[in-house]
């Protein structure tokens, strides 16, 4: 869609082809780009997995949205003269007021639901007094711009300031002392409300002294609903993303086919004091005394297991190779597991290295994946390593599916069991949602 809009602006008549489920999204994108009459055409969903014969039938068949022969839409779109509407485009201002019209609590709660401003769980209404109180959680002014956000790469950016984050933090039930963490997450540039069809969420890890200052839970139930800070910080970040980027509406600004329960709230704190290894933020170049957030774009899959028992290697290899390869694993392990690995002689880098070295698949399995084909294959064709070597491999040749830099380890949990999870979560480098960032970690202290 972005290419089509740019080419039209450059004087080249262009027809974007989308599958029919993306029709609303296509029109909304064109409208927001000032080109509401962009001549789009549609084929049935899906294209993935269809044979050449079946795709030819799409081309020779009926456009399921425009209800006319597909090729008529293409040829008319490229050759029919422009109308007055085509020539003028559409210029318009959209504004979002700072305050809404006064109303009763019940009516305002319904308004927030009707407008898609909530996650459908109860919210705290962001009154002026509550937002003012929330803003006491930072020394910075409310009108300081935090950043820009959008649901996916081809959509428009919306801008937001500290007050908007505070408003959403109030809605989530957060306390003022949590605000710097929510601000750091919101400034990460990673949306927790991606519109990706793969239903990505954002999973974040808090490190440093602020974990204890605001009472985050790193022990029993650290990833569950057992702590106000954990629960509301993740929710505040998610609601902020949803609202400051211009929405997360199914069929329009959200296309995740299954949805994702990590999207409600997914902010966790590392049990640094119980880990035998350096914490995540120190791995990423920060001081132990720094307070940071690290954001992982993923949550598409979650696997769990125990260990390390006698057959831990087989267990880990099964989990690693079952992971979707475009979304490498964030490995979360209980301190019991981490210390047991340390007792086996592993440092964190050596365990990550072992995982990368032993996670292998036949090349045919690796490449038989929609997103590997879409996101990684172009780099392989362009000669970018290690993808190029993977593409050159014979179909039955075992290839490494991750590099050490792909895999991260975080230690948390209550030591009631030696459990671990592998959660899909890309934090840096090439891939969806990361904007090729060098580091996934941002400083909280600058938002205090």
């Amino acid at each position, binding site marked *: 869609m972005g290419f089509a809009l740019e080419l039209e602006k450059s004087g080249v*008549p262009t027809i974007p082809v989308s599958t029919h489920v993306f029709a609303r999204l296509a029109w909304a994108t064109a409208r927001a780009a000032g080109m509401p009459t962009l001549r789009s055409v549609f084929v049935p969903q899906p*294209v993935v997995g269809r044979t050449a014969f079946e795709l030819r039938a799409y081309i020779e068949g009926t456009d399921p949205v425009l209800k006319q022969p597909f090729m008529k839409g293409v040829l008319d779109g490229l050759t029919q003269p*422009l109308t007055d509407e085509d020539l003028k485009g559409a210029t318009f201002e959209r504004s*979002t007021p700072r305050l809404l019209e006064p109303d009763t609590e019940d009516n*305002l709660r319904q308004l927030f639901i009707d407008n898609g401003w909530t996650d459908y769980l109860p919210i705290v209404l962001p*009154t002026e007094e509550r937002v003012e109180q929330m803003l006491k959680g930072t020394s910075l002014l409310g009108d300081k711009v935090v950043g820009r956000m959008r649901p996916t790469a081809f959509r428009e950016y*919306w801008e937001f300031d500290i007050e*908007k984050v505070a408003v959403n933090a109030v809605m989530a039930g957060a306390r003022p002392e949590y605000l710097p963490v929510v601000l750091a997450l919101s400034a990460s540039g990673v949306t927790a409300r991606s519109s990706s069809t793969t239903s990505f969420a954002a999973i974040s890890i808090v490190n440093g002294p602020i974990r204890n200052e605001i009472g985050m839970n790193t022990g029993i139930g650290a990833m569950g609903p057992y702590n106000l800070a954990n629960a509301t910080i993740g929710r505040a970040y998610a609601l902020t993303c949803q609202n400051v980027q211009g929405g997360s509406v199914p069929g329009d600004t959200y296309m995740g086919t299954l949805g994702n329960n990590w999207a409600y709230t997914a902010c966790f704190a590392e049990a640094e004091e119980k880990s035998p290894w350096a914490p995540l933020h120190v791995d990423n170049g920060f001081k132990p005394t720094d307070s940071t957030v690290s954001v992982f774009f993923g949550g598409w899959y979650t696997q769990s297991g125990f260990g390390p028992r006698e057959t831990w290697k087989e267990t880990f290899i099964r989990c690693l190779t079952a992971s979707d390869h475009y979304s490498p694993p964030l490995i979360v392990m209980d301190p019991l597991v981490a210390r047991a690995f340390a007792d086996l002689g592993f440092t964190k880098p050596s365990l990550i290295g072992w995982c990368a070295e032993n996670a292998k698949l036949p090349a045919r399995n690796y490449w038989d994946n929609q997103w590997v084909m879409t996101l990684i294959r172009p780099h392989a064709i*362009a000669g970018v390593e290690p993808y190029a070597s993977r593409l050159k491999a014979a179909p039955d040749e075992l290839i490494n599916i991750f590099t050490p830099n792909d895999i991260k380890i975080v230690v948390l949990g209550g030591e009631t069991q030696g459990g671990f999870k592998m959660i899909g979560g890309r934090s840096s480098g090439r891939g969806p949602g990361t904007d090729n960032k060098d580091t996934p970690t941002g400083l909280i202290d600058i938002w205090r």
Partner: protein
Amino acid sequence: MAGQIVVHDPRGYPPKVVGKRLANRPESLDGKVLYLIDCLFDNADVFMEQLRLWFAEHMPQVVTRVVRPRESWVDDPEMRAKVVADGNAAIIGVGL
């Protein structure tokens, strides 16, 4: 009014939308260069090849050229410049 409260709007600040006109259309594609842009989504290459074959069979006077951006989801100014430089029209797909 009694019982009424004032609350903040939680939304961010949208950019101003500036209208842009569509490109002028040729009367016909005969003898024109039509770029078929494979946007790199899985199987889009197969679709574009079928589209190329359709033009070859039904409108052979149209010159079709298949091109691809260097990666998915990312702008490719060089590819766009090539299409603008010697293309008369383009079809891009399949996906967003």
